[in-house]
C-alpha cells in the first residue's frame, strides 16, 4: 500500500488554482522531499491530504484512506509539524507533550509508553519541566517532533522542519528521520535546502501549482529538461570567483552562471570547447582557472526548470 497517492489532485480558491493536477505516489517508509518556491502550493497540498481542504478535482488517498471521506481517521493516524514549531510557549515540555497526547486520545499504559518513547527518542528528559518558550531552536524542534509523533503516526508531514535552526540540529533531525523511516514511518518533507533534498528517497518539485519534476535525485539530474538541448555544464575553479563570474557571463555562449563556494557552475553551448572558455578567461586576466564537465546539481535542475517555464 502506498502511504500517499494522488491522481490529478486540483484545488482551486475561486479563480486561483493553488494545486494543479498533481499526481504523486509515496511508498511506505519513504522520505519524500517536496520542494518549490513559497506560495507554489506545498502547504495547500498537505492540507488537502489531511482533509482540511476538499479537492476541486482529482482524488487523494492517505494510508489507504480517502482524503475527503475519511479525513477524521487520517488525522488520527498522521503527524504534522510546521516550521513554526507550533508549541505553547507558556506550557512546559511535559505539558506540551501531554496536551498532544490528550488531543490524540491516548490513554493508560499506551499513553505512558508513548510519552516515555517520545521523550527518549528526542532526549528531552532533562528539560521536561522547562517552559517551551525557554528552549533553544533545536530543542523546540525536537519537542515539536515529539508532540507530532506522540500517537505513533505511520506518516508524518514535516513542513519546512529545519527552517531557521542550526546545522547540528539539522543533522540530528535528519538522523532521526532516517532512523524512523527505517522503522517504516513515511515522511513527506517540504524544504528549501538542496542538501536535504539530496537526502530524500524521492523528490517532487512544484512550481506555479504544477508538479514539474518527480523522481529520485539522480533521476532528476538525468532528465533532458535539466539541461536545455545543445548545452552542457562545467565547473570552473578560480580564486576570483565573483570577478570571473562577471566576465564570463558576458560571453554569448553562456546561458547561465552561478557561484558555488570557490567555483562557478556554467551552463553553456556544448559546441564550445573548454579551451575556448579557458582562453576567454585568460584574456580577461583570470589565468589560473581550472575547469571540468559536471552533472547538474538538484539546484541546477530546479533553477533550469523554473527558468524554462518563466520563458
Amino acid at each position: 500500500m502506498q502511504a500517499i497517492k494522488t491522481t490529478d489532485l486540483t484545488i482551486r480558491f475561486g479563480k486561483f488554482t493553488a494545486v494543479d493536477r498533481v499526481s504523486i505516489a509515496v511508498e511506505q517508509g519513504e522520505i519524500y522531499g517536496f520542494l518549490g518556491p513559497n506560495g507554489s502550493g506545498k502547504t495547500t497540498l498537505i492540507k488537502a491530504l489531511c482533509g482540511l481542504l476538499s479537492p476541486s478535482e482529482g482524488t487523494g488517498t492517505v494510508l489507504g484512506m480517502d482524503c475527503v471521506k475519511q479525513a477524521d481517521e487520517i488525522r488520527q493516524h498522521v503527524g504534522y509539524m510546521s516550521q513554526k514549531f507550533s508549541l505553547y510557549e507558556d506550557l512546559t515540555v511535559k505539558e506540551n507533550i501531554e496536551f498532544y497526547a490528550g488531543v490524540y486520545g491516548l490513554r493508560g499504559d499506551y499513553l505512558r509508553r508513548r510519552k516515555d518513547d517520545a521523550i527518549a527518542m528526542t532526549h528531552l528528559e532533562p528539560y521536561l519541566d522547562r517552559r517551551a518558550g525557554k528552549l533553544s531552536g533545536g530543542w523546540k524542534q525536537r519537542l515539536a517532533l515529539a508532540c507530532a509523533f506522540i500517537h505513533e503516526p505511520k506518516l508524518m508531514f514535516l513542513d519546512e522542519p529545519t527552517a531557521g535552526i542550526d546545522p547540528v540540529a539539522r543533522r540530528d533531525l535528519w538522523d532521526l528521520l532516517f532512523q524512523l523511516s527505517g522503522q517504516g514511518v513515511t515522511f513527506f518533507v517540504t524544504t528549501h535546502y538542496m542538501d536535504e533534498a539530496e537526502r530524500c528517497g524521492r523528490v517532487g518539485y512544484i512550481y506555479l501549482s504544477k508538479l514539474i519534476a518527480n523522481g529520485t535525485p539522480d533521476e532528476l539530474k538525468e532528465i533532458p529538461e535539466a539541461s536545455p538541448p545543445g548545452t552542457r555544464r562545467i565547473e570552473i575553479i578560480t580564486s576570483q570567483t565573483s570577478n570571473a563570474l562577471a566576465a564570463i557571463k558576458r560571453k554569448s555562449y553562456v546561458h547561465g552562471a552561478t557561484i558555488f563556494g570557490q567555483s562557478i557552475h556554467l551552463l553553456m553551448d556544448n559546441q564550445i570547447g573548454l579551451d575556448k572558455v579557458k582562453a576567454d578567461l585568460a584574456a580577461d586576466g583570470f589565468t589560473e582557472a581550472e575547469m571540468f564537465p559536471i552533472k547538474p546539481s538538484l539546484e541546477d535542475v530546479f533553477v533550469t526548470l523554473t527558468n524554462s517555464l518563466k520563458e
Partner: protein
Amino acid sequence: MKATDQQPTRSNPFSGLVPVLRKEAIHISRDPSALFFTIVLPMIQLLMIGFAINTNVRRIPTAVYDAAQTQESRRLLDRFVNSDDFNIVKYVFSEEELNREVIAGRARVGVKIPPDYSRRLLAGQSANYLVLVDGSDSSVAGEALNVSNAIALRESLERSLSVTSVRQALPIESRPKILFNPDSKSANFLIPGMIGVLMQMMTVLMTAITIVRERERGTLDQLYMTPVKPLGLMIGKAVPYAVVAYAELLILLFFMRWAFGVPIRGSIPLLMMLCAPFILTMLGIGLLVSTKAQTYQEATQMAFGTMMPSIFLSGYIFPIENMPAQFQFISKIIPTTYLIQIFRGVILRGAELQDLWQQGAILTGMSVLMITIASLRFRKKAG
C-alpha cells in the same frame, strides 16, 4: 493497522474538548498579570464610576438679581434655597452682571426678580420673575426648569388660596415615594448596568484573544491537523473563560455590595443562572471576532467596537424609552440590554424568575444563535 487497535477512532464532534480545556486553564494560571487585569481593571473602573459619577442634579450654582428687595421676593428666594436644588452663589445688582455670571459659567442659573414683583402681587396682578438657564448641560437645565416652575406654581397656589398667614395645607399634595432607590443614588442605578458592560468586555476580549493568539503562533494550524473538532476546541476554550467571567461577576457584586452599599434584594443564584446565556452569547461573539481578526490588535479593536452600542444603547446610562424608534429597535437586539434589565431587576427590585423569564429566554435564544454562527464560521475556517 496496529495504531487502530490501541486508539479508538473517534468521530465525536466534541473531540479534543478535555485536553483543550486543561491546557487553557494552565494558560490562565501561567499568566497572572492577564488575570490580574481582567479582575482588577474592572474593579478600578467600578470604583471610579461608583465614587465619581453622580447624575443627580443637586445644588445648582445660582446667581440672583433681586431688583425688588421686598419681603415677597425674599420669600421666593428662600423657596429656591430650601429646595436643595439651587445654591445661591452670588447676589448681583444688574441684569448685565447676571448674564455675565451665567456666560462665565460661574452660575448655571440666574434668577431675576423685577422691581415691580411685590407691587403686582399685592395689586392682584400677575407677577413674573425671570429664570435664565444654562442649557449647555441638559440634565442641569431640565432639573432647573422643573424645579423653578414647581416653585412658581406652589407659590401661586399658596397665594391664591391665601394659605400664607395661617399654616394650612394645600388641597392636593403629591407625595412621591421612590421605590428601591429611595435616595436616587446614581451608584445604585449605574453599577448593576456597569457590571453587565464590564462582563461583556472581558468575555468577548478574552475569548477572541485566546484564539487569535493561537493563530498568530501557528498552533491553530497545528490543531486543525489533529483530530480536534471545532466544537471541542471552542467549548474547551470557552469553559475556562466562563469560569473567570463568573468569578469576576462575584467579585464585582461583592464590591458593589460592600464598597458602595448597593443592596442586593433578589437571589444571587438566580442572577448567576440568568447570566449563563449572556456569557454564552458573549463567548460566541468573542469566537466570531476571532474568526475575523488575524492579529491581537485587530481582535482588541473589534472587541471594543462591540462595546459602543452596549454602552450607549443598552439603557446602561441613557434610558431606552427616550430613544427614537429605530434606536429602540437596536437596543432590543443588544444582549447587554437584557442583562442590565436582569441585573437591575434582581439587585435593585428583588425581581424573581417569573418577572424576568422573558429576558432569560431572549438571551438563551441569542446564545444559541451566536454559538451556532460562530461554530459554523469556525468549521469553515478550519476547512
